[in-house]
């Protein structure tokens, strides 16, 4: 059976790559390879996953230098006989392939991403026209699984500690387009603040890397335009 060489980061900030040889299989994802190494070669190898089908966003790693969701990345699609796997970029490392995602999640909150509305559980849901432009804009950004792949792909995130990053701002965009949301001003204020949308240089890595095919670049551009409107006082936000 042909084998695949995998180089896996061991350690935390200090560490080194360790090579393993794993049997090649017809159907094999990067997560499978990592699992196989852990199961049959080194029990103590640390990695993180949950859903294994691309909905939980906890398995992202750097694969051959690119941030990816590993559970949905087929080895074959890498077209490479040697696979190098490292922990996700732009996040503090915990051990081996596991990173601390709490900073990323904190930024999500700092971007004003908490829904509020005037209604409560006794009221019926607001009628929302599914074909309205705002609903469509909100929808286009809403399916994010907060996997952090875009966050890892954005250089501004690594250069500027205060930058909220593409995922957090993408969510802010869906919120400011949510006609039910009553705290749009607060959400916009965060999106326009020091770490906000003005920091984005349209590098586009986020969009190119997002496994879901979302477009944080577009969402952030939307926020930039809305910021202009609101500073000019002409926005309905």
């Amino acid at each position, binding site marked *: 059976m042909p084998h695949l060489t995998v180089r896996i980061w061991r350690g935390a900030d200090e560490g080194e790559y360790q090579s393993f040889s794993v049997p090649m*299989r*017809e*159907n*094999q*994802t990067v997560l*499978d390879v990592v*699992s196989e190494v*852990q199961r*049959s070669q080194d*029990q*103590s*190898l*640390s*990695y*993180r996953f*949950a*859903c*294994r*089908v*691309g*909905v*939980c*966003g*906890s398995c992202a790693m750097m694969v051959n230098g690119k941030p990816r969701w590993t*559970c*949905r*990345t*087929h080895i*074959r699609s890498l077209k490479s006989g040697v696979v190098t796997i490292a922990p996700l970029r732009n996040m503090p490392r*915990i*051990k081996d392939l*596991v990173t601390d*995602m709490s900073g990323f*999640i*904190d930024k*999500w*909150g700092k971007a004003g991403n*908490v*829904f*509020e*509305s005037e*209604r*409560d*559980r*006794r009221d019926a*849901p*607001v*009628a*929302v*026209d*599914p074909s309205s432009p705002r*609903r469509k804009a909100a*929808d286009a950004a*809403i*399916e*994010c*699984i907060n996997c952090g792949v875009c966050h890892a792909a954005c250089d501004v995130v690594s250069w500027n500690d205060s930058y909220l990053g593409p995922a957090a701002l993408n969510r802010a965009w869906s919120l400011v387009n*949510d006609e*039910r*949301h009553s705290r749009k001003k607060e959400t916009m204020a965060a999106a326009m603040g020091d770490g906000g949308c003005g920091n984005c240089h349209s590098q586009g890595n986020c969009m190119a890397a997002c496994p879901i095919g979302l477009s944080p670049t577009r969402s952030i551009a939307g926020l930039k335009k809305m910021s202009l409107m609101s500073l000019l006082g002409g926005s309905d936000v």
Partner: protein
Amino acid sequence: MTIETGKTDILIIGTGGAGLFAALHAKQANPDLDVTLAVKGLVGKCGCTRMVQGGYNVALAAGDSVERHFMDTIVGGKWLPNQELAWRLCEKAVERVNELENEVGCFFDRNPDGSLHQKAFAGQSFDRTVHKSDLTGIEIINRLMEKVWAAQVNKLEEHRAIRLIRAADGSGLAGAMLIDMRSGCYRYVAAKAILLATGAGPTMYRYHTPSGDKTCDGLNMALDLGLGLRDMEMVQFHPTGLLGGPDTRMTGTVLEEGLRGAGGHLVNGDGERFMFGYHEAGERATRDIVSRGIYQEMREGRTTPMGGVYISMAHLGPDHVAERFPGMVKRCRDCGFDLAGGMVEVVPTAHYMMGGVSFSADTSTEIDGLFAAGEDCGGVHGANRLGGNGVANSTVFGGIAGDSMAAYVKGRKTWRDADQTEIDRAVAESEYPFSKPSGDLHGLREALAHTMWDDVGVMRDAAGLERGMKTLTGYTKALMDMGVSGDHRAFHMGWHEWLNLKSLTRISEVIALAAMGRENSRGAHYREDFPDTGALEESANTVVYAKGDQLELHLEPVDFSIVKPGESLIEDMAGMPTPMVAGGVSL
């Protein structure tokens, strides 16, 4: 062994729909409460609520009613549900969905007139499933996560609960023992009230859908406390799990039911459509029937190269399929399969556990201070869970748990003293594998998976169950002879797999025992040697207790407190698919 200690008013174990809702409600009831979430993975980024595709059942629309939803649930559950719980589910779901929309911020799909869109789901007499495209769980959990982060709740992420600790004076529950998985340290958290919301999960089967972090730990901890587990033989199999081969984690993951609803064909290894041989509705028959049909084909050897059957969509037009099921098509493509134009191999896959901890409608349990909600609990669904009732269950009862716990801790100034011997025992039991030579954990897990699949699976009989039980006892012994490698504890996945296996083998035995005890066929439980339903009026629930190392089975008659077999709360037939979509579009 040093043990870190902490104190909180309310400790919630698990962050699925049940856990997060409980945290939110407890904080709403009293913002000054100290609420702590402990979870095996990252908050909200693990468990199955996030994986919900199909949606959320709720009687919102004109023409639908709580009574109708209730009758569908009872009839679907083959008269085994606890009726008070089922009623509470259907009634509260209305409020909960409005809360999700208006307070939590879920942005469900709409009808052209702006009202919530509700789709058809199998086994229901009304289109009542609220959804956000086919990724409803992501929307629910992401919005809940945002709310919970903002609510000043303590988070113990990557903390595995290993034992619930009783009070020294026997008055109730004192706290829980956890392992901080990142450091490998033990942590005792004293709490006035604890919610068990670890989501059970039938991951001991060769093919299974749930998230990998779910390994029945909660059920195991409940058994240790002496609580009864009811209806444990009721394991729901989803008919179309992806089959990718033995060594890929994608195997077992769900291909949505809508594929069959839309007219997908199931074809066996000989290239024949076989479902009409089993049921007149063909591929559109209910989950249990289709699962058994496929299983039968597999048993008779008419399988695909990897040992399943094919699902084929191409005749509907590849472009049409790609457009209608973009998520499924992309998922298959990422895994190397062409769903839109080719044939994809599928198998029935263990999806949901209807059984679990016995609990009351206010989520309290027999142990003072312990509450339970979500998939860890038994009684709401009986013999079958309707698609869309799972997430309703976890969010409805999770919210109730938050309210109940906040009320419970009110006025309680002090924490109970822990029974130190229990704490010591928790540590000793977890340290045990480091005292043994490291072994082939994965091999054992595979063996367990095969046994459960073959002997305690889609179709059962006395001989198989007995054989299975014997083998399972052997696995329990084998596990105790097997240790893990190394001496460090930090993020040691082998160690955690050992602990997973400990829960899984024990709960597997519980399932097998309950399955032996039920000598009739109801819903998800099918006995080849007892294919009949049995008299509905004499319906009983199985309840399994642990007495020392032994498991004990009891049969307890169902209390038809609201409606008796033969009666109904609605005019027409409950549990019938809506005429529009036979078989429904569901998950």
